């Protein structure tokens, strides 16, 4: 049986008769939809193209998407109250939880998708986990926690107060939080990361460029830095700390109003620069230059650690 037809049958079984009357019938003649108090569940599996997309949104609950080797998609979606509005196709799946009579209960989506599937997921207080899809991911949650592993091409994550954990992502990366902490490792590509008060920790990443911005959150990056990359760290009161290998070639611009600058590398002020009580600004070059790093804070401290020399900085 055509898998799409089978899938439609599973999800539309209660409405199969209704689908025969598709002409614009007088609205008064149509029956009421199912009671909004009934728990709704969808459980279906069908063929799904690699490179397809899923678009999921709910208010509270959980979204879990896992990439796998199969060329089928498995969808299990439940909602305690409210209604799931779905669109299922071979290249695109969307599921949205909508309130009925202004009520929407806990909702859960668990999907297994072919690797290469692009995922978009939005939640208000739901947690979101997207692992192993190996393709573009876009995830936003207001207060839920977000975990993404193994995304590529593009990763866009936003949260207000949830925590963000990312491992193995490449391409164009964009992380934003208001107060949620962000912890990421094994990133490659270009990263823009912004927070007001969350902590930002980036480990074991080879990023070609970073734009990091914070009000009070601390930023920690342990490199490495690309010889041709540009890295900008800015915060108001958050501390900025990064590590450079002993044989690094970099041009550094550091400036802080009242923060402390501490470095394992000798800092020599350029002629004409001042290190008075106000505005401490330093520009200096390590090795033969190359990497451009700027770190600016109002009152946060700037700390540069010396890491063991690397054979190849890239």
């Amino acid at each position, binding site marked *: 049986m055509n898998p799409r037809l089978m899938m439609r049958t599973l999800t539309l079984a209660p409405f199969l008769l209704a689908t025969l009357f598709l002409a*614009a019938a007088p609205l008064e003649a149509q029956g009421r939809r199912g009671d*909004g108090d009934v728990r709704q569940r969808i459980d279906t599996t069908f063929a799904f193209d690699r490179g397809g997309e899923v678009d999921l949104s709910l208010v509270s609950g959980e979204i879990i998407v896992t990439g796998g080797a199969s060329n089928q998609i498995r969808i299990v979606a439940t909602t305690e109250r409210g209604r799931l509005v*779905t669109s299922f196709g071979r290249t695109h799946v969307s599921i949205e939880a909508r309130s009925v009579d202004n009520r929407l209960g806990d909702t859960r989506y668990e999907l297994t998708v072919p690797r290469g599937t692009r995922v978009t997921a939005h939640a208000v207080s739901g947690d979101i986990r997207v692992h192993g899809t190996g393709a573009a991911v876009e995830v936003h949650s207001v207060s839920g926690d977000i975990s993404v592993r193994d995304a590529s091409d593009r990763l866009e994550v936003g949260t207000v107060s949830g925590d963000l954990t990312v491992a193995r992502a490449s391409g164009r990366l964009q992380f934003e939080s208001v107060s949620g902490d962000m912890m990421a490792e094994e990133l490659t590509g270009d990263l823009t990361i912004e927070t007001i008060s969350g902590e930002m920790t980036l480990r074991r990443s080879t990023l070609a460029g970073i734009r990091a911005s914070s009000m009070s959150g601390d930023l920690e990056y342990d490199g490495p830095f690309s010889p041709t990359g540009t890295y900008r760290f800015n915060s108001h009161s958050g501390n900025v700390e990064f590590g450079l290998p002993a044989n690094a070639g970099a041009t550094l611009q550091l400036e802080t109003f009242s923060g402390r600058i501490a470095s394992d590398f000798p800092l020599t002020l350029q002629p004409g620069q001042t290190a008075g009580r106000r505005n401490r600004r330093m520009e200096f070059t390590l090795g033969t230059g190359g990497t451009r790093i700027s770190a600016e804070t109002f009152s946060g401290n700037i700390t540069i650690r010396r890491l063991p020399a690397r054979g190849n900085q890239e």
Partner: protein
Amino acid sequence: MTHSLTLDQSASQFGAVPLDDVALAAQGDRRAFERIYRSHVDRVFSVCARMVGDRARAEELTQDVFVRAWDKLATFRGESQFSTWLHRLAVNVILNDREAEGRRRARHDDGVEDMDTISYGDVRALPVPGLSLDLERAIATLPPGARKVFVLHDVEGYTHEEIGSMLGVTSGGCKAQLHRARMLLRRMLTQ
């Protein structure tokens, strides 16, 4: 600070309503309001039909829009063209209608949009392999989020920022949705 913003990109293609009709209707003159209706119904219906992908529901929504416009007429003070004001009101009604959906008598195909079927118009048909969809039908088969963004941006001319604030997404997310919509349409139109 003088920075001009093109907020009225949704300006209509037809003539403005005589402002005295708006003033008259605001005072309860239903004849004047009917003239307003006749001048604007196609415009309102077009955005409803394309946003929801369903003509019958769009007709209901069009009526909702005009009823709401009647209620709100007194608040129109001429800061923009009347057509712009009405258009925005229509978009609000369409977007807010999602909340009320559960209370409506349900349509069997409410929200269920199988990518392989054409739900636009009165007839649902499975596509014949190799048949090209024209753009109007292709838009109707887009997933809801992508369709709304595409209609608001490419058909109706709102900016990403405006759409972002209407739909509750970032303008970056909106751009991504738009690109996705266009790529999907391209795929459908060249099959």
